[in-house]
């Protein structure tokens, strides 16, 4: 089997990111959308760590540290909003929340 190069890691990350964005657009469940966003974030994390290894620094991991922290905060707030929305409309379908239209 061929040795994994940086390129393979980057490709893997790209695929993962694409999967995440597809999920954001395709799914009709708010929770799943949030999960897809987490997938995207993880793809980015993978990129950072891979490049870190390639270059021999640790700055990438520190960035990963912060990304994970921020992802946690974002997930918390996002879920809180989701709960509030659910209470309002009894639905988790994003298309149910379109009152701000022309």
């Amino acid at each position, binding site marked *: 089997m061929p040795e994994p190069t940086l390129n393979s890691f980057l490709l893997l990350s790209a695929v993962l990111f694409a999967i995440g*964005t597809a999920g*954001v*657009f395709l799914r009709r469940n708010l929770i799943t959308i949030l999960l897809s966003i987490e997938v995207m974030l993880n793809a980015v994390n993978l990129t950072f760590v891979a490049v870190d290894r390639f270059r021999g620094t640790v700055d990438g991991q520190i960035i990963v540290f912060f990304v994970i922290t921020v992802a946690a905060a974002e997930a918390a707030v996002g879920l809180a909003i989701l709960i509030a929305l659910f209470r309002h409309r009894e639905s988790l379908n*994003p*298309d149910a*929340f*379109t*009152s*701000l*239209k*022309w």
Partner: protein
Amino acid sequence: MSLLLIPLLPFLGFLVNATIGSRLSKSTSATVAVAAIGLSFGVASSVVWSLVHVAPVAGVRALDAVVFTWIQSGGLTIPVEFRVDPLSSVMILIITGIGSLIHLYSTAYMHEETDSEYARYFSYLNLFAAFMLVLVLGASFPLMFVGWEGVGLCSYLLVGFWFTKQTAIEAGKKAFVVNRVGDFGFILGMAAIFATFHTLDFQQVAFRVAQLPVETTAGVLTGITLLLFLGATGKSAQLPLYVWLPDAMEGPTPVSALIHAATMVTAGVYLIGRNAVLFGHAPLTLNVVAVVGCLTALMAGTIGLVQNDIKRVLAYSTVSQLGYMFLAMGVGAFAGGIFHLYTHAFFKALLFLGSGAVIHALNGEQDLRRMGGLKKDLPITYWTFLMGTLAICGVPLFSGFFSKDEILGKAFASGHTVLWAIAVLTAFLTATYMFRLLYLAFFGERRAAPVTAGQADDHGHGHVAAHGAHLRDAPPAMAIALVVLAIGSVFAGYVGVPESLGGGNRFEHYLAPSFQAPTMATIEGALTVAAPTIEPAPAEGQESPTPEMALMGVSVVAALSGIGLASFIYLKRPSVADALAERLSGPYRLLVGKYFVDEIYDAVFVQPIKRVSTLFLWRGVDAGLIDGTVNSVGFAVRGLSAVLRRLQTGSVRAYAMSLFAGVVAIVGYFLWR
């Protein structure tokens, strides 16, 4: 420095009365106004005194005062500079001196107005004086034009002073608009002068014009002077732009005295006098000036013969006398024209103020047919009015005689015999209608309105006269003014007694330098370029006394026969007047209708312009084009936004997707590169 005070003092008076005047009592407003112009007269007198003692430099005797540089643009520098020389010295003395008397007179005449109206009146009057002084003291065309426009404005304000009266408003508008037509000529002339001579200072222009030959055929100078003359006809009410002056009688009588007798209307004459060298080089224009002046004098004289409103008669007589002044300028007798301007100021102002006293005494009656017998009720008014009438008729020993005679003499001597004859005829008519006025107003018994063939020319300024009420003669303020002016009407002419009668004609010699070009480009002595000798204006030299005595005799005969005719008709056989009117009803109606000039102008100019403006300019351009453009911008925005707002679907996912689409596009772009 003191030169600046002359226009500044009345201007300050205007400021005071315009801003806080409504809160001042009448006596305070009056004091401010009269003091402003009175002090200005004092300063003017002292300035003239020093001027007389100044030695001429380069053939020019003048005092200068520069305030600041007004315009500096490219090659054009116009400082705000005032200059007094013999010509303007005469003018400022007239403006401030007679102006002061009129201000004094107004304090009594306008006394029935409210406090704020009173103050407004005096503020306008002071402003008028200030602008007129700027006009005559200005050392360059633009500065003179400032004064020119300013007096036009003040004339509008003062003629339409009683703005609640429809006829007054219209008269004010008419005055301003007709003046504007003339101003158009002035501006074009000014531009042409700058284009030709690259300077707008009077002395510089005169110097440069003197280098050029006299234009015997139509050329640039003729064009320029004709344009300037157009401006002069507007301001000085000559053919074809005289139509505003009779209507301007809607204003208060002191206003008519100041603006339309003594000062503003003389601005046109002054303009020609100020540019004597320029006009001297365009003899074609001078001919036009002389002819126009002469015809105007005749025409106005004929109209004045049949008018029934006391002020109208005087208005037409003013137009006629101005015609004399222009005739003088046109035959090259510049000093003669100014001399007549000077004497005319005295007796015309006197006549207007006298008529004002009559109107004041009769509580607003202005129709001659309802007057009569005032000689015993209003003695001061009568005697001063008589002095003025004798002066205007050119009766010997009165001031008008000397000035009118000089004009007639110069006209004959310069070869314009036809014009001379017309002028003599006009003198005859002047005497006739003035004494008609005198007799109808002051002699006989008080009449009720006569039952004539429906010619109504009534312009009362308020309420109808009360028959048989006790009449009060002029109050002190008015009487002083009348008496002083009467003395002037008699004696003012003696500064210009011609040589043939033993006088030294000092007036003419005093004024002569003003009508010649300076021999240096600047009188500060920067350049010493001698100007070539110029041809003097035609026939200023000594004339042998015999033809002059004969001419004098002719004019005296004309005047006395006019007086005789008037006395015959109006004292002895009043019915003759009505009989003549019946028999010559065609000409009579023509004269009463003022040759229907107003109606012609209305049909030819006013109505078409109104129609074009309404249909094309208003509906077409303004409402259609301009409003349409602005509105269509609004419609376009509205339409566009109606389309664009559909982007707001409310679906967050759609928004996210558009973001993402942008990212994809950008990445794609960089990939592609």
